[in-house]
């Protein structure tokens, strides 16, 4: 077993070295007595293997060898390499540098795309309350970086937004919608979220959420509590509002399937 392992290591040496010294190295291994000394010889051979492939510039050069009187004693043919080619050291260095550059560029590209593109999948969204939406319907939202100042965000609303509304009652609690209305900015991922009041002839006044520059309908919100509104027709999607010390809404957390966008009020 150990001899086979040693033979493999010897055969892994460059062809010139192996042809010249391989049989002698096997002979020396055969002279070892005990497993410990055999293991020491194998370890030394591994170091030799590393040296030959990394440090010796003449690895691929065949040295003139004295003729053998007879073939190998064990009559087992040695491995032959098809080509004793070995790349130049400068080519190896160039290849290493090029690989490192490509690796760094790939890492940078992945990091850049991770910051700037975040696909959020909303299971199902009721675009229109009167329209029946099947449970398998999927609507994909792309969170798009905030636009430069001066460019108006596009918001598609089903009705004209307002900033005041009558209070609504849910679970015995009266909720005024006005304090929630405003623009919320997220830095990571960059996004602008608008919360506004919309009036609907069927369901009355309600909050709606829209993402800046997204060519999507706004999302209707229904209150669960003063701090949490769920997105109508979407599972596992809700908006949590946080108040500051004065009791004013200061930020929101837009959660879609466990992915959260934290946005501060502008």
């Amino acid at each position, binding site marked *: 077993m150990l001899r086979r392992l040693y033979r493999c290591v010897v055969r892994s040496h460059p062809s010139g070295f192996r042809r010249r*010294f391989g049989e002698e190295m096997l002979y020396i291994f055969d002279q070892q007595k005990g497993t410990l000394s055999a293991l020491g010889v194998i370890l030394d051979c591994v170091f030799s293997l590393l040296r030959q492939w990394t440090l010796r510039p003449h690895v691929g050069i065949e040295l003139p060898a004295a003729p053998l009187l007879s073939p190998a004693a064990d009559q087992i043919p040695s491995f032959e390499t098809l080509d004793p080619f070995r790349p130049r050291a400068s080519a190896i260095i160039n290849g290493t540098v090029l690989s490192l550059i490509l690796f760094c560029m790939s890492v940078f590209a992945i990091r850049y795309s991770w910051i700037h593109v975040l696909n959020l999948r909303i299971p199902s969204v009721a675009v229109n309350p009167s329209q029946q939406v099947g449970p398998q319907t999927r609507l994909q939202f792309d969170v798009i970086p905030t636009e430069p100042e001066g460019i108006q965000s596009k918001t598609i609303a089903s009705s004209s937004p307002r900033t005041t509304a009558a209070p609504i009652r849910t679970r015995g609690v009266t909720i005024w919608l006005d304090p929630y209305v405003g623009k919320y900015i997220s830095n990571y991922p960059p996004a602008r979220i608008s919360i506004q009041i919309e009036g609907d002839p069927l369901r009355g006044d309600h909050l709606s959420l829209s993402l800046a520059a997204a060519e999507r309908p706004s999302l209707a919100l229904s209150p669960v509590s003063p701090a949490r509104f769920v997105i109508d027709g979407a599972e596992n999607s809700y908006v949590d509002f946080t108040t500051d010390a004065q009791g004013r809404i200061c930020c929101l957390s837009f959660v879609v399937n466990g992915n959260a966008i934290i946005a501060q009020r502008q």
Partner: protein
Amino acid sequence: MAERLDSYLPLSSAALHILLALAGEDLHGYGIMQEIARQSVGIYKLGPGTLYDNLQKLVQFGWVRELGPRRGDDDPRRRYYRLTDAGREVLTAETARLTQVVREARSRLRGPNPRRV
């Protein structure tokens, strides 16, 4: 010639011991390993990988010549190696350098003890 030799000095431990082992007689690889172990009283043991890696270098420098197997030897896999004249010169130069080192070390060690601050 001396300047050319100096560029190769100091020799590595393995190269020095191999040249030293071959200075007495022609030896095969395993014989070199045994001779080195004998000369260093078992302190310095050379593995076959290190031995042949250095032998390859020494043959390329022209300090050691490969003779090949001997007729009538026990094992035909054994190849013998011989120290060349160039190898002997290098060994002589390295020995002189080491002698100087030893002389310097002895004179320093015999001298007065360094002052304690």
